[in-house]
């Protein structure tokens, strides 16, 4: 697979490490979350046959973590963005 890195252009997926579903970014608020929220965050994944948002760590490149939107049935990648948005250089 080729992942079109927002900064570096097309790169082979072999340079990346798969980190799991992008939902991992939505860590429950420790002040308010219930036990169910934590259970869901730690253990429950949708595993869709179709469009999936997931995290890829560019370990062999610039160490950015990317949010890749990929169809798990065709490997078609429809969107790639940086997990940590670039800061406006003011």
């Amino acid at each position, binding site marked *: 697979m080729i992942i079109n890195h927002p900064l570096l252009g097309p790169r082979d997926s072999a*340079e990346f490490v798969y980190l799991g579903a992008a939902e991992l970014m939505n860590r429950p608020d420790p002040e308010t979350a219930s036990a169910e929220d934590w259970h869901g965050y730690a253990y429950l994944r949708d595993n869709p046959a179709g469009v999936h948002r997931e995290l890829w760590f560019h370990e*062999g490149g610039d160490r950015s973590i990317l949010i890749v939107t990929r169809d798990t049935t065709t490997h078609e990648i429809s969107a790639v963005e940086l997990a940590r948005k670039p800061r406006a250089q*003011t």
Partner: protein
Amino acid sequence: MHDLTPITALGGTTPRVDTVGDVTLTEVPNVALASVAARLGQESACAKKLKSLLGATVPEPGRAAIGRDYAALWAGPDQWMLSADFDTHEDIAVHVKSHFSNTASVTEQTDAWTCFDLMGPRVNAVLELLCNIDLTGFDTGHATRTGIHHLGCFVIRTDARQSVRIIGPRASAGSLHHAITTAMVAAL
């Protein structure tokens, strides 16, 4: 002056040089390196400082820039690897930190890496056995981090068709050197 004698990453007291056909691989130990990462909210200020230090444009993603005393390559978002001559900049991180002040985190990287120059007319034939870089558009000043036999390395095009600099992890210098010289024999 201290009395400790350094060794090169390959374990010698002098740099290793290997030539196969018209391509030469040279171990380059006298490169000082420091990582510069902009502090949050200081990205522009850091870039300005970098520009003034380099005396050249700050490199964009996938690029390197050579200034008067320093060169820099883009290493990640708002992060660069600075290099200078080791003989004059052994304490590069200390020098550079005062220049950037609180606009950047600076980390000494000199001995985290081993540096090789690969030079010769058929350097691309060697490179294509080593790493997945699109050589059809890899021009002078391009620089990227990529894998060479499982080792994360920076590859910098130092001359359009003739040469590249490969900066790889120091502890694996022997494996990296073996990979490059093996590819040289295979390709040339």
